[in-house]
């Protein structure tokens, strides 16, 4: 995803001389081509994220479209107040890019895992929040952000879900992308972990359970209509995110559906529950440890459908 993002920026930089990429001393090799071609549209500000975000605001107020780029929490939580006061309050045209969404950085350790960013960033007024599931969405979101004016956050995962892009498919910012149809259960995922949802859906299909799989690439603004349709057309909704369940995708979906007065048959938030991702291992290993892999998703679906069936029997017996 990181490469897809940089490639898009590299493609668009010539037509957008106002575009500036700021990095907090990250992007070894990855940014080389961009830097070589557009030295005047690049700035390594050093290991100084607060300054990077304040600078970005100042540059944006002068008409630049500024991307700030770093790992995990460094471009977000480390400099959250600069994002709130300097960028968002001024409506400054700054796009914050985190590489290493969720537990992408695996065994590097919890300091490099971004697991509260969606909740925190989406609470900021005026901030858009993108969390693509595959390379296409990452590139398309980046392309959209180059032209969009105002603050936005782009969370890039190391893993990417294997989703087929339909011929002529258009990326619709602010809309949920239905990547698989189904009517038994809805799996609403954000980020590369959508790949686990697809694997779970494959396994469940063999048992005759058909999942609708939604890619919530835009967490803010949230596409309530598609979620409401899923709530009424499928048996229930499971939100899946490599992120804390509090305030993240699961939080956002429940807020939206409650306010819309639409109640799914059941609702489960899959994600980190009041825990740091302190186990050591690859992203894949960590998903297993924190019950976020395909097997855990399939188990959750089966358990919920079984419970629903019990309730149905109880009601029928009455």
């Amino acid at each position, binding site marked *: 995803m990181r490469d897809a993002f940089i490639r898009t920026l590299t493609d668009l930089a010539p037509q957008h001389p106002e575009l500036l990429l700021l990095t907090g001393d990250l992007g070894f090799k990855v940014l080389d081509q961009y830097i070589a071609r557009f030295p005047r549209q690049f700035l390594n500000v050093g290991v*100084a994220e607060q300054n990077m975000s304040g600078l970005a*605001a100042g540059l944006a107020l*002068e008409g630049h479209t500024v991307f700030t780029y770093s790992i995990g929490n460094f471009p977000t939580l480390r400099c959250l107040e*600069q994002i709130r*006061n*300097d960028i968002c309050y*001024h409506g400054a045209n700054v796009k914050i890019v985190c590489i290493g969404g969720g537990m992408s950085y695996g065994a590097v350790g919890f300091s490099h895992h971004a697991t509260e960013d969606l909740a925190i960033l989406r609470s900021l007024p005026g901030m858009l929040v993108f969390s693509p599931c595959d390379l296409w969405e990452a590139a398309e979101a980046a392309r959209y952000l180059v032209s969009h004016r105002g603050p936005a956050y782009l969370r890039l995962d190391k893993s990417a879900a294997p989703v087929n892009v339909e011929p002529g498919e258009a990326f619709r910012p602010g809309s949920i992308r239905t990547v698989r149809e189904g009517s038994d259960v809805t799996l609403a995922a954000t980020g590369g972990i959508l790949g686990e949802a697809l694997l779970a859906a494959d396994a469940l299909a063999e048992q005759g359970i058909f999942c609708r799989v939604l890619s919530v690439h835009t967490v803010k603004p949230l596409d309530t209509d598609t979620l409401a349709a899923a709530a009424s057309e499928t048996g229930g909704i499971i939100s899946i995110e490599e992120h804390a369940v509090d305030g993240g995708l699961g939080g956002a979906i429940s807020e939206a559906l409650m306010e819309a007065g639409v109640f799914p048959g059941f609702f489960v938030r899959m994600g980190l529950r009041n825990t740091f991702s302190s186990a050591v291992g690859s992203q894949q290993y960590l998903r297993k440890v924190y019950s976020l892999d395909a097997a855990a998703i399939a188990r959750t679906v089966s358990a919920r459908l079984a419970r629903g069936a019990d309730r149905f029997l109880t009601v029928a017996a009455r």
Partner: protein
Amino acid sequence: MTSVGGGAHIGAVFSCADILAVLYGGFLRVDPTAPKSPSRDRFVLSKGHAGAGLYAVLAERGFFPVEQLLTHYQDGSDLSGHVSHKLPGVDVSTGSLGHGLSIAAGMAYSAKLKSAPHRVFCLLSDGECDEGSTWEAALFAAHHGLSNLIAIVDYNRIQGIAPIAEVIELAPFAEKWTAFGWGVREVDGHDHQALHTALAAAPFVAGKPSCILAHTVKGKGVSFMENSVLWHYRIPRGAEFDAALAELEAHP
């Protein structure tokens, strides 16, 4: 206005009133009829708690009506205690210390990229030089040779609730800025001529950002407020207000 509205930070405002008066009394290239003119000099009040001082000079320069000052701190006003960019002539809202120099450096870097001749001025407090972010910005500005950036530090030696000597000593202060790659001058921050001369001399070193350490007295102009921690938060009312006004009017 701070008395009517109940706004704090009068000591901080008086501390930098002369600096603001010199800047807006003719030094800055700004035009009240075109507050967003791309060629204007930029000004960032990093010590946003002195918003009342900036509002006052902007109103006097005709950016908005002087009567509007009386709405400071009032329900429905645009004049929040900490400076707000809702007001014409204010580019940046601040209030959290340690943000302004980064924003100003971004503006200065942009001007350099565009080869634009305008300059960027940033007024900081000494207290916000406790903030690491201030020094991140200082390193950046020096590295990129932002000679179009001028920082003025209101060096009154008092911070929020105590003198800096008791909290976090900054001395040797000029040496710190010099070591960070800035051209530095120290002036009496209440001497208009000296301030003007220093401002006019920037950049002090070719190719470097400039720092003016303005030695000031917190609460300047009102004997019982001068050098007092109390008047960071206290609001003058009644007899205190009358006495303060009398002193200020005696020395316009």
